[in-house]
């Protein structure tokens, strides 16, 4: 992990127990490498490292008895701070019906996460929930969400592929206006697909969501910054869910997304089952990104 790498760097510089400008810059280089290997975006790493240099060359680090541990702590704390301090909850307003809309690239885990969120709202928050399948493109997308809805005994509204998504969500909001929460699953799409992004704008206009959650998987690479910026510019992202955190992906996308949108990361997906959803805790993810 990062601690071992720092130890190697500082040991290379001989028996000096104290840090100075020169060996801090070697430590900074190790951080840059570690963050890039963790898939944090190149420009986000540059910014992070520049801020870190200012912090680290302050009195605090130089005077400390165990410079390696102190340096790792400075980096770790800065990372946690970058990723938004504490965990933020799901916005369920208490007046019917709170609408949550899930958006993102193809295959990121939206449909599975929609069901997980419904389960979370039902079991942990004791709310009534309805699931809406607004993906009319992917073969058997509606079937997929319907099967999951049945598993957790939550009503499903799908429009049977005969209606456009804008009409589907309109019908769903009418039929389930007495539920506490309505969760809308949308089709995966590229942020550069103007027609499909317009469709999301239409769905937003139609449903006035309380939450628009961007769903990305934890293994996303450098381009996630371009993706989430565009979704944010066009729709306004109120929160983020990162899926597939049960993989061994380092998850640097978490830092990139948070830096670029400022939106809180609310949950992480940690498996394929409906209960595999956890609230996001920055300290744990910071440790994982640093390796």
């Amino acid at each position, binding site marked *: 992990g990062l601690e071992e790498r720092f130890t190697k760097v500082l040991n290379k510089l001989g028996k000096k127990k104290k840090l100075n400008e020169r060996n801090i810059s070697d430590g900074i280089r190790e951080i840059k*490498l570690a963050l*890039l*290997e*963790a*898939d944090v*975006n*190149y420009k986000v790493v540059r910014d992070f490292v520049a801020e870190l240099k200012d912090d680290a060359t302050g009195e605090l680090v130089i005077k400390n008895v165990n410079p390696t541990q102190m340096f790792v702590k400075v980096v770790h704390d800065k990372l946690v701070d970058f990723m938004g301090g504490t965990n933020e909850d799901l916005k369920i307003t208490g007046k019917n019906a709170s609408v949550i809309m899930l958006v993102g*690239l*193809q*295959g*990121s*885990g939206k449909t599975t996460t929609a069901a997980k969120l419904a389960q979370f709202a039902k079991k942990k928050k004791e709310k009534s929930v309805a699931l809406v399948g607004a993906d009319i*493109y*992917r*073969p*058997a997308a509606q*079937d*997929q*969400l*319907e*099967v*999951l809805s049945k*598993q957790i005994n939550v009503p499903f509204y799908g429009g049977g592929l005969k209606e456009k998504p804008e009409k589907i969500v309109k019908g769903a909001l009418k039929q389930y206006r007495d539920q506490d929460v309505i969760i809308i699953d949308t089709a995966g799409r*590229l*942020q*550069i697909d103007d027609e499909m992004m317009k469709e999301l704008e239409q769905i937003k206009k139609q449903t006035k969501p309380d939450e628009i959650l961007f769903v990305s*998987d934890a*293994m*996303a*690479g*450098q*381009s*996630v910054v*371009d*993706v989430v910026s565009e979704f944010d510019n066009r729709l306004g992202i109120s929160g983020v869910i990162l899926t*597939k955190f*049960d*993989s*061994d*992906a*380092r998850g*640097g*996308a978490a830092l990139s997304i948070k830096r670029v949108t400022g939106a809180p990361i609310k949950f992480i997906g940690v498996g*394929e089952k409906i209960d595999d959803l956890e609230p996001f805790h920055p300290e744990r993810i910071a440790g994982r990104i640093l390796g």
Partner: protein
Amino acid sequence: SLSIRNELDDFYDDIEEILVTGDVGIETTLEILESFKSKTEEDTIENQENLTGKFKQVLIDTIPQKEFELSDNKINIIFVFGVNGVGKTTSIGKLANLFKEQGKRVLIAACDTFRAAASKQLAKWAYSIDVQIVKHTEGASPGAVLYDAIDAAIARKMDVLIVDTAGRFHNRNNLMQELDKLNKILDKKIQDCKKQNLIVLDANTGHNAFVQAKEFKEVIPVDGIILAKLDSTAKGGIVLPISHKLNIPVFFAGIGEKAEDLIKFDRIDFINMLF
């Protein structure tokens, strides 16, 4: 001279940014730069355009260009796997469509019996491109579907059998063992065939795509890659470390969600797109 040195530094900084933001990975980027610098005479540095061209050629030469081929006189087995959501099922639909257009008799096996509506998704693909499919009900054992599909492929004298599997991460030991078991069934049950194991990778994935290729390869042979979602803004640069360190060829790229959105991977176009 100092000005050449400074221009060179700028050039290498630009290259580093291009490669890293293209998901080549910092480790491989630094290795490639190191090796290029050591082979490039500083006093014979030509203008930046020529240097970029030279650099691109080095990258192109790193990538194996291998043609995907079907056998004309034995049954072809294509075993498809990869982590969750990368595009396996969709890529199989595209492949089946491609081979059908080439006049082959194609059968698809729906061996993802785990995920909600997975078999139904593949069945809808089969129906839309008019290709035969073997599937069971959800919760059936993937091995059982595979046995049935193999029998059907032989009995119906199919040219190609394509096997879809459930998404799985390489750090899930029990799921990797299941994959190994399915691979062994194929190896044991069909003696005279041409079998190709293809991993599907998502072009949006960062460094983990390399780990996926490496770890899957430690469990079963990986003969080639389908790089899906190359129509996104991601560059799929992970192909470089995979080529360099694992030597697995990329056979196809997915460039969209429809049946025709599959192209032969071309390393020259790929490197040009990276820049």
